[in-house]
């Protein structure tokens, strides 16, 4: 919480993204960006494990949260504002533009999925966010349960909702959805969206 986020202006993100390449900052060997005063690092998936390990050894003792994000339709809604979820199509936004809009540093290729890990260091109450790109054709990620045991349920949740497989996870199974569910509901191309609300007569069929 270095600078006061409240005074940040609306296009802070753009400034962050533009200034960053000028002086590449590295933390645990991964490029750093600052987003609204929060520190974010962007290791590649291959390096992620090593980076996370050095983060843990550096005092980030608690893995607060693991979230998945599916960037498939990123930016479509802001261009075509409407309440309906847009029909899925590969985004036609150029890579540079996409990188800027997703506030990724230079050298990181935006992929469809992202695994976001939030870490907490008790010693100075600092937080670190690790964003790792995961490609759509190979949605796997090395498990971090050997670093933080508590990541167990969080990884299962990401697996359940996004279908990102955590290799070597001790018990990777669905956690929120029923076991026979098909598909991963928080993926943007998951198709079973809305079930029309059905208003019916008295189910006994006989009146009361």
């Amino acid at each position, binding site marked *: 919480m270095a600078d006061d986020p*409240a005074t940040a202006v*609306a296009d802070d993100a753009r400034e962050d993204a533009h200034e960053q390449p000028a002086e590449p900052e590295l933390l645990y060997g991964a490029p750093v960006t600052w987003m609204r005063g929060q520190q974010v690092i962007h290791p590649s998936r291959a390096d992620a494990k090593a980076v996370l390990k050095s983060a843990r050894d550096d005092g980030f003792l608690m893995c607060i949260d693991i979230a998945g994000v599916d960037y498939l339709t990123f930016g479509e*809604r*802001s261009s075509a504002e409407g309440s309906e979820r847009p029909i899925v199509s590969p985004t036609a936004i150029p890579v540079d533009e996409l990188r800027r809009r997703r506030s990724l540093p230079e050298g990181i290729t935006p992929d469809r999925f992202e695994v*976001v890990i939030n870490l907490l260091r008790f010693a100075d109450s600092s937080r670190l966010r690790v964003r790792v790109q995961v490609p759509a054709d190979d949605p796997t990620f090395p498990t971090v349960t050997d670093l933080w045991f508590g990541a167990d349920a969080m990884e299962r949740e990401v697996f359940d909702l996004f279908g990102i497989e955590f290799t070597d996870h001790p018990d990777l199974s669905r956690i929120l*959805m029923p076991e026979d569910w098909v598909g991963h509901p928080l993926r943007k191309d998951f198709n079973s969206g809305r079930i029309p609300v059905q208003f019916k007569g008295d189910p006994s069929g006989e009146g009361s």
Partner: protein
Amino acid sequence: MGADGSPAAQTFEGRQEMTSAALTSAVAKLRESGAVMRMTEEASQQVQETFDGDPTGDERMIMNMGPQHPSTHGVLRLMLELEGETVLRVKPVIGYLHTGMEWTGEELTYLQGPTNVTRMDYASPIFNELVFCLTVEKLLGVEVPERATWIRMLMAELNRMASHLLFMATNGMDLGAVSMMLYGWREREEVLRFFEMVTGLRMNHNYIRCGGVAADLPDGWRDHVLRLLDMIPPRLDEYDTLMTGQPIWRDRLQGVGAITAEECVALGVTGPILRSTGYAWDLRRDDPYLAYDEVDFDVVVGTYGDCFDRYAIRLNEIRESIRIVRQVLDKMPKGDYRVQDRKVTPPPRARIDESMEALIHHFKIFTEGFKVPEGEAYCAVESPRGELGCYIVSDGSSHPYRMHIRAPSFVNLQSLPHMMHGGLIADGVAVISSVDPIMGEVDR
């Protein structure tokens, strides 16, 4: 079987269920019971032989508890492996209340967002709204007026009291102190009355909005709160008489479900469970949000990390909350209760009648919502159950692109297998109760 002989609905959950001990490797078993956290993986590998050599005795059975069980706080389901009455392994099966709120959160505008998140942790709805709004405000870069901040603190602390009173009631009920059920509800009802007066609803308030709060405090709020603050402490003393010093209560709770600080940290457990181990970690003090750095309060910690400590911590946190609320009453500033930024908050009701422009803004905000610049942010608050976090990715539109809630109960539940291991089933109920999981938040 159904009443007419057709096969009844099944609740088979496949791999989510617990496999029998004979088919589970020792490492997995040890991991479930938490021993791996104390032993190295290699050491536990070595235990494998002796562990597996133990034939599955006839005494052992796998039992299902829940999802519809009165002492599992809603729809938690536990698979238990028992030997006699001793719990050997526990596996929580969750998801019976999965509501797809993260999905719905992406369908609703930022303005509607609090309506959705407030239904997650229904024992402390204000905190959900708070963390959502803090995150959106971080993305927007707006500064909330001082009065709004203090109103938020007032509501949050009162909500913490209500939530802990609910815990007192259910904890007592689970352990057989049935009269606590009545007392806890009686006090909680008083707090809810104030909430109803301010927000119009007893729960799921949707009171905290991006940029401030929905409405200013009504006339007479101060007297109402003061009456509340005078009424509750003597009743807490009654609880002390009824439970804290009572030998049966102590026997039921002391030494049950103990956990250490290291184990909590490894499991990601926060809140009263972490504090019960003696580790004083409270986001209100260690990573202050709102104006918590301007009020004076103590972080209550325990010593042994057992159920009794968790009970005592919550009881005393109510007292600390009362202390905070008193300071909030003294310091409550005057001013706006939401930012006067026409892009974020609707214009005052009175102006709509006179100004066409205000009407248009009002209409636009409620139909289209406001746009939030691209970016992502994570904010956390200390909810009564631990660290409640919210991660939002914005793509520049008026809807969150991704809204994720880090629910404390969800993570805290992971400590159940560890804390229940080796105890009796009756103690297991005490442990579940002391974790105080709210299933709406676990499953979201």
